[in-house]
């Protein structure tokens, strides 16, 4: 079956400017065969949810290092649901303590990648866990 190429939005929520990881992931996903949209920095949850809907993506990868993940990740998920896009797979990465990662998974984040995760692991995870939206 010829798969539709999955579209993935890579986004940096909040005020944190550390975009090295996000850019590496964006390039690795592109090399891994996905269509990648990168929003650039300093995005509000509204901007991210809106871009996800506009771009009709299948997944959203969020990267944050400032510690605001507990506020911003669930907000993105809530806003996606409000826009009828609750089936978009949200995954994230950054400096996220284990306890927070567990809580975020309960809140609907599909996977959390922390420092040391390889781009290959992330690409593989997307291949195995993200389906094209209907």
């Amino acid at each position, binding site marked *: 079956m010829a798969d539709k190429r999955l579209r993935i939005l890579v986004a940096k929520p909040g005020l944190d*400017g*550390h975009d090295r990881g996000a850019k590496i992931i964006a390039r690795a996903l592109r090399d891994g065969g996905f269509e990648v949209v990168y929003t650039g920095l300093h995005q509000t949850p509204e901007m991210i949810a809106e871009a996800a809907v506009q771009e009709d993506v299948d997944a959203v990868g969020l990267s944050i290092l400032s510690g605001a993940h507990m506020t911003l990740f669930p907000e993105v998920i809530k806003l996606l649901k409000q826009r009828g896009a609750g089936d978009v797979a949200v995954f994230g990465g950054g400096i996220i303590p284990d306890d927070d990662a567990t809580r975020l998974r309960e809140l609907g984040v599909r996977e959390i990648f922390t420092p040391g995760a390889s781009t290959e692991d992330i690409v593989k995870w997307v291949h195995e866990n993200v389906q094209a939206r209907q």
Partner: protein
Amino acid sequence: MSSKREWLETTYKQASERPVRFSTISDMELAALYTPDDAQGGYDETLANPGEYPYTRGVYGSMYRGRLWTMRQFAGFGLAEDTNARFHYLLSQGQDGLSTAFDMPTLMGYDADHERAQGEVGREGVSVSSLQDMVRLFDKIPLDRVTTSMTVNCSASVLLAMYLIVAERQGIPWDRVGGTIQNDMLKEFIAQKEWICPPRPSLRIVTDMIEFCARKAPRWHAVSISGYHIREAGSTAVQELAFTIADGLCYVEEAVRRGLAVDDFAPRLSFFWNIHNDFLEEVAKLRAARRMWARIMKERFGAKNPRSMMLRTHAQTAGASLTAQQPVNNVVRVALQAMAGVLGGVQSLHTNSMDETLALPTEQAVTVALRTQQIIAEETGITNTIDPFGGSYAIEALTDRIEHDAMEYIRRLDEMGGMVQAIETGYPQREIAEAAFHYQRQLEKGIKTIVGVNKYSVPEELPIDTLKIDPAIEERQVQRVRKMKRERNSLAVREALARVSEACRSNENLMEPILEAVRREVTVGEISEVFRTEFGVYRDPGWI
């Protein structure tokens, strides 16, 4: 004895070589051996003695035999009083200069009560919205005896104004206040990404501050030209050096265009480098940096005062080199990086704490980091003679090579019309993203090693204590800012803001109106809002 070439073809060929690529962390290949054949240029022109042009061997005549570097640990979290307590602790432990970390909203020009500040207040640094916060931050710290470094860029003009007013209230005249404000906006667009306005108005604000400090606060360093973040964003050592020196060049050009004489402000320009894992490359980078700056200031700008040519620098061990895995190993990384910094001749140093890849440092972790510097200074003996690596064939060859490659970048930037144009087209941003991706690939292929991550990894990790920021801090700070805004004289605030707007629209130096506004309790966010209105907002083009 054989020549180097004969030696390579005979003795070396017969010996065995491990099947690895011998290159630096920046992927610069190294020769098996450096010999006198590799020495370029004479001693007088390329090295010279310490304290003499081109300062390769150090900016001061006696270097650490005269005075050790300033041990300046970066600190800031929570409310102003939390950070004030950490400052007093660090000073009591033998630290001799302060270095302030502000939280993201402060760094981006938002007050704690702004909706964009949600979830970020006091997390990555201390929250400072108003003069009252600044007064609490430096409570009982004598600003004429302690120098302070403040890591803030797009809102630097407001924070500097606040600091000067705190000094004034302590009865200390501005000409006795010493310290550094980072204020390097060009590197923000290249790497650190905390901005308010586009590059050109940002450069104008920085130049206003250079001019103001040259006249009113002569002991203050109005800009610390920073490669640190360029490296953290994933650049090579050569890119860090090239883009940073090119940023410095741009500030000097702007100030000269403004009519300032180069020798009137250049002695107060300072630098800030990253010290990464590759020991030899880092020592060579610092030596190359001094030589490049000296030559550029003399040859390009006709500086006469030797102090204008001396690249004095702070350095910090590489945050990005630390691993969340086996975090205790970070103590070793930091020690070796700090040693490279000292052998490279820095004037001030921050050593990272082992837990910084997980959270802000605990008091115990920051103490170990400070002790690391003290051990290097007082136990290892490497401070007993100046530039002990000077004359090492390998170090000198690497210094020459790094200078050459960095100058090649500067030539390319000149061709593009200078750094501002280059930034607008995304050139340095893309070069850095490319280097970061190349390194990541090398790690994943096992060409480069990170101990405990892609080699010698273990399934279970020992948990270490980390500092937790109480979420209640945000609510307290928000309430405090709101209360302050209700109680101040709102007419005085409006007048002061109108004055700042007017100055933005004219050629007037912005610092006096900002000082006046801060005196009237105008906040970081309110002045930044004037910048947004008058100069426009910069949006990340998102180059990948």
